[in-house]
């Protein structure tokens, strides 16, 4: 009796060992040469050998007490699994799908939050405006000094005008524009990241950003430069503020999911919402980079207020129609 079990255990290995060796050799070949250089016959062998190895593993787990054999089969199966299922390639196709379907869809899904954030931003602007109008001392509270760079309530109209139309030659405004861009991207990222803390910091941050905007506008308006300031701001600001609004809407969505997870666990809720919110956030980063380029080039070279408004308005209309009207989904619906 003892002899017969030795036979069966040995048989288990003897009968299948050739397949394992062939699978291992094929994986080595694949690692060395890549899938394109393999012959058709070899490629057809791959899934068959993978399944054979996987079934050997299942069997060995049930009947074999040989640790080394189990470890070997485990490692080989995992290696084969990574090869066959590990990675879904197609970066190009995926990028196209992101721009044509996923990004607008993710932004549309955040519609309610987006509206709320727009309202919050406007509220902040009104508050900032009102406070600075009643007491210019508030300006210093809203605008950090390194962003203000002398454009305070005490600056003369000529000074302020010079900054709006200074052009890119003196180098100063370029530096400021880049600093503003970095600052605004950080605000957008913070709005998103702080969403995890139940969304509360995001709300405050958006409100504060609105206050800053209102303070800026009020200072310029008090010198009769509101129209020009609006132009200077709108050329890239429509894109940039939109991006901040979307980022904070995504943050809020995650925050509410964490705060009110329903019958999911909080971590699951965060993970599920995070996935669609992250798509919108990636889009916001793209928008911010676009705004950065506009800021670096457009704001300095285009000095006519009407043209600035035209570009800003055109971009806003463009983004809105891209997100909310355009729905080219037919080709990318299949996952």
């Amino acid at each position, binding site marked *: 009796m003892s002899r017969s079990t030795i036979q069966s*255990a040995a048989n288990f290995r003897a009968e299948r060992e050739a397949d*394992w060796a062939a699978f291992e050799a094929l994986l080595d070949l694949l690692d060395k040469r890549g899938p394109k250089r393999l012959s058709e016959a070899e490629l057809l062998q791959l899934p068959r050998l993978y399944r054979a190895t996987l079934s050997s593993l299942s069997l060995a787990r049930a009947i074999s007490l040989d*640790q080394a054999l189990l470890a070997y089969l485990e490692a080989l199966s995992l290696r084969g699994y990574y090869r066959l299922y590990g990675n879904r390639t197609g970066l190009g196709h995926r990028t196209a799908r992101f721009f044509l379907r996923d990004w607008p869809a993710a932004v549309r899904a955040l519609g309610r939050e987006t509206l709320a954030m727009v309202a919050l931003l406007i509220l902040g602007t009104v508050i900032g405006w009102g406070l600075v109008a009643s007491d210019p001392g508030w300006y210093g509270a809203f605008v950090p000094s390194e962003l203000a760079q002398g454009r305070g309530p005490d600056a003369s109209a000529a000074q302020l005008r010079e900054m709006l139309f200074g052009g890119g030659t003196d180098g100063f405004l370029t530096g400021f524009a880049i600093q503003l861009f970095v600052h605004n991207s950080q605000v957008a990222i913070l709005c998103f990241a702080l969403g995890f803390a139940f969304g509360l910091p995001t709300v405050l941050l958006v409100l504060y950003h609105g206050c800053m905007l209102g303070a800026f506008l009020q200072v310029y308006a008090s010198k009769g430069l509101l129209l020009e300031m609006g132009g200077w701001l709108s050329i890239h600001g429509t894109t940039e503020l939109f991006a901040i609004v979307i980022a904070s809407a995504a943050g809020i969505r995650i925050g509410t999911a964490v705060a009110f997870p329903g019958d999911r666990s909080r971590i699951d809720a965060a993970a599920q919402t995070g996935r669609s919110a992250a798509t919108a956030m990636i889009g916001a980063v793209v928008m911010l980079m676009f705004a950065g380029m506009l800021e670096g080039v457009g704001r300095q070279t285009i000095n006519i207020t009407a043209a600035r408004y035209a570009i800003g308005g055109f971009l806003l209309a463009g983004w809105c129609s891209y997100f909310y009207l355009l729905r080219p989904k037919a080709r990318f619906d299949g996952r």
Partner: protein
Amino acid sequence: MADSTERHRRDLLTPEGVPLTVSIASAASRLIALVIDFLCIGLMMLALYLLLALAFGSFGWAAAEPIMVGLVLSGFVLRTLYFIVMEARPGAATWGKRLIGLRVVSRDGGPLSIDQIVARNLMREVEVTLPFMVVASMAASGDGALWAALAGLVWALGFSLFLLFNRDRMRIGDLLAGTWVTERMASARAADLAAGEAAHFIFSDAALDQYGIAELHKLEDVLRTGDVRALRTVTDAIARRIGYNEPLPDDRQFLTDYYRGLRTHLEREVLLGTRRQDKHDI
């Protein structure tokens, strides 16, 4: 030893329905891989800066503006592209990860999608920069509410070091993307210890009933390591337990034969439906 590795083991359910065991990478190896990756990116940025300096040298102030924009944006673009493109390749690992032997897998056992890769890598941007941003904005606002600064910093660090506070060693990015970072488990095909020529020692069923699967695996370890003193100790222990009193000239032969007998015995029991876990399990 088995206990400490056991804690890092997770089952990954393949589409075929077979659970495969993966080993979660430790925080230390993640950190080392990250440092290597940042070194690689640093070198690339250095090359880019040299190139930009060369451009500045030949174009002068006329090109200063695009060069400056390039400088500001290059870090972010390079980092993001490096991680995403590297992890989108079949190895699912950056250079740092590959050197340490790590790779990214999807927790649900399905293929790792581009979305997951993008999500986990963009989140890294936030995780790495958030503490610095908090400190910088605290320093900038300047009015020095120390407790507020501290609270902000603690929160930011909790966010960034989330990895240390969960057993799966997931960053926030991993959590959102639904991924694990696993360690490579290499294992060469070893010869079957139970195969081979006929046994010199024949053991009775009573002698083979003395041990269970745990001892069988210990014995396998000892035989595969082949340490002479360990062989000696184990031989003594087994001979005493099964009451074998003859002189033993060859420890290895004795142990190999006992291993063969015990494994056959236990495997037969397994086939019949009983798994005797160890010597205390009757």
